[in-house]
């Protein structure tokens, strides 16, 4: 029997702080083994949703479940299934790396060899084994992030909620954290991750949700969201793709010809290259290319820039801050 129950589910989640709607009717589900990327500008409601999932805050209305258990009514059952890595470190003074992880292992009621094994496994996975005796408050940013990830993993939870795990890290550390997350997903963990580094999310996420001003604006796989954006462009919603055409001679003439075409805007002629925005889908672009050739232009290159997650993010959100 296939388990169809989502591991993470938000059902019409609302969270208000006075008149501010930090989370406004957000619903989505993440299934076992999926990595869900939660994208949004600062103050969009990502951290609030994540804190509710971690049973650190209560929703004003709606509910959220982890493996079918309500975070409002069964937080104790949720906590055993969830590892939460917040956007702060939470280290103790006068405690070394081993003692820190040992404390959290004890706090999750791991006893005897299970506890020792858990601490060893996590230190090995995060590469902290060489720093076991180092005080936690003396660690570098990257090492602290690893320690926090280790803390979230110590009880081997089925679900991980990671709030900006790669924030402030250098490129190498970011790549290492990304590899760790991918490896966790490959091992069947369900992961909800927020990040500002969208290219990274595009690489590791199966599903992406874009949130702004508390509202979920778009959700789906990265490809599906890109497709949605393309379709939106085709429906004339004012969203365009960047196209670059190179011709042998006659770039200026091509510019004039293009200026007469519908769906073309922001023309730039630079030597043999003509750049413009085209508000149409791929078929319309193909038609445009054919028309261009039929009009006698000697086209040597026609490039339609595929939208990245960042482009989609910029198109979907408006940069509004609450």
């Amino acid at each position: 029997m296939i388990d169809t129950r989502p591991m993470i589910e938000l059902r019409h989640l609302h969270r208000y702080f006075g008149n501010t709607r930090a989370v406004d009717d957000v619903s989505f589900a993440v299934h076992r083994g999926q990595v869900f990327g939660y994208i949004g500008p600062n103050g969009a409601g990502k951290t609030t949703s994540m804190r509710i999932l971690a049973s650190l805050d209560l929703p004003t209305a709606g509910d959220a479940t982890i493996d079918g258990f309500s975070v409002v009514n069964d937080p104790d059952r949720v906590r055993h299934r969830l590892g939460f890595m917040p956007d702060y470190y939470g280290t103790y003074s006068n405690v070394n790396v081993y003692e820190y992880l040992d404390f959290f292992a004890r706090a999750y009621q791991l006893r005897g060899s299970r506890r020792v094994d858990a601490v060893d496994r996590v230190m090995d996975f995060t590469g902290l084994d060489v720093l076991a005796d180092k005080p936690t408050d003396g660690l570098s940013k990257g090492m602290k992030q690893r320690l926090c990830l280790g803390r979230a993993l110590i009880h081997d939870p089925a679900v991980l909620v990671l709030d900006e795990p790669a924030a402030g890290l250098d490129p190498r550390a970011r790549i290492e954290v990304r590899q760790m997350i991918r490896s966790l997903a490959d091992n069947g963990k369900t992961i909800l991750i927020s990040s500002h580094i969208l290219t990274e999310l595009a690489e590791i996420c199966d599903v992406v949700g874009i949130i702004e001003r508390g509202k979920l604006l778009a959700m789906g796989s990265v490809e599906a969201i890109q497709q949605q954006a393309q379709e939106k462009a085709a429906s004339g919603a004012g969203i365009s793709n960047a196209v670059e055409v190179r011709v042998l001679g006659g770039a200026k003439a091509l510019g004039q010809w293009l200026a007469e075409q519908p769906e073309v805007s922001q023309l730039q002629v630079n030597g043999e290259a003509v750049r413009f925005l085209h508000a149409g889908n791929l078929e319309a672009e193909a038609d445009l290319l054919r028309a261009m050739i039929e009009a006698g232009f000697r086209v040597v290159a026609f490039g339609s820039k595929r939208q990245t997650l960042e482009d989609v993010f910029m198109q979907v959100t408006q940069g509004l801050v609450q």
Partner: protein
Amino acid sequence: MSSEVELSSIEVKAAPTAPARWWAAVDRAMVWGGDRLNPILVKETRQALKSRQFVITFALLLLCGWVWSILGVAMIGPDIWYGAQGADMFFGYYAILAFPLTVIVPFGAFRSLAGEQEDRTYELMSITGLGPRQIIRGKLGSAVLQMLIYLSAISPCLAFTYMLRGIDAPTILFILLYLSLGSLALSVIGLLAGTLTSEKHWQVVLSVVLIAGLFYAFGMSFLLAGVTLAELHGVFLQPEFWQANAAFLTGYAGYFALLFYAAAAQLSFTSDNRSTRLRITMVVQHVLLTGWMAWLWIWPAQGEEELPFVFLMFLGIHWWVMGALMTGESPELSPRVKRQLPQSFLGRVFLTWLNPGPGTGYMLAVSGMLAGLVTVGMALMLVKWIALWSPQNWRFNTAGTTLPFGILGFSYATFYLGLGLLVIRLLRRFTHVGILLAALVQVLVLLLGCGVPMIIYMLSTYWYDADYSLLQITNPFWSLMHVVDRSALPPEGYVLLAIVPLAALLVFVLNLGGIVREVRNVRIAKPRRVAEEDAELAAVKVPPEPVKKSPWD
């Protein structure tokens, strides 16, 4: 030849000797015990051993003990050989020990929890498997451990005072026991203070208040130790001394439990039941007070007429304070709490009042006071009946003002708590009212009742120097004192007895709607997912069917 080589390469392990086996067993037991220690206690002990504050305090304690030993011996001089100067030396050591125990340890407990909230490590801890009671127990355990370390550090000095004569070992132990209990109580107060707010400016205010309170407690402990040293001679042989101590210790245990559960409730998740344990503790305190008062009244005090007054007064204050806090609870029950509501008829009749909610809290407080009043009434009737048969030494005063005092006190408390609850319900239509704000409303309502007629008295030339009049009917304190101040009920007493209970009944009736709404809550079923998991867990715990090994099995 080859067989010799093979044999020499085999490592021969000797069987472990008896001491080695014994040590291995001890080691296993230590690991087993260590695994079951509170995680916070383990972490804080590790932290404390490396912390500068602990090292400095410990070093200062040792240094002060050493300095006082030299100074004290120098001051005593040759008297040390034939005098009895132990008590004086002990007093100095007591001061050295009392400071860390009454100031540093409790403040450390407060800072430990407040610091976790500031650094947000509390959040990380709270989402582990640690429950709020475990967290408080761990922090208290850490405070106890520090106390024990300080005590052990000064213990050679205390043994030295015993050898100097002038103080006996029971006195030393008695004073140390009470100092430790005081330190523990102050630590739980510190922890409760640490849970009250996570906002930095309020934590600063609380720190200042707490420090002032702890220094006051240090001064008081100093005073009490002095009095104890002066007055404690020979009392250990008197049974009344131990009875009084037993009464004190049960009261201490009751209030300690109340503070402990209050601190744990503050840390509990919002949808948890924060109230029932506290209410059970309140009821236990009520029973303990009733028991000790009954014993005191019947045996040592032999019907002393003031005791029922004292009992009713204590009980009235106890339930008014608890009622003021309970009326601040939210009227909404979370589905999590509703899953655990009593569902049998008897359970609903008797246990509903232990459920969270302002209406049930009001009812519990009123019922507690009524139970006290009925207990006194029945006791007075009983002794009147006993006095008919054995009137020898008993001097029970069954007439007079005991019952009117009780009825009026009960009515006033019912009236003011009910009125406060109505105001709180009104306020809740506009804003969120928490427990502290609700308690403040209750205090303000009572102060208004007392203050308005007092102001009229002060502003009027006619009443300025006047004695009690019925204008003071809303002032419970003066009215009760006026009733209790004489052997027979004064003329105003009859009017008070007619009006105040009626007003209390009216306010109670006005609150009935809210109470009924809360009583109507019934148990709800567990969500399907919870039931599924419970069934899975139950299946794991059920022992497997025994396998038949013989025809007789």
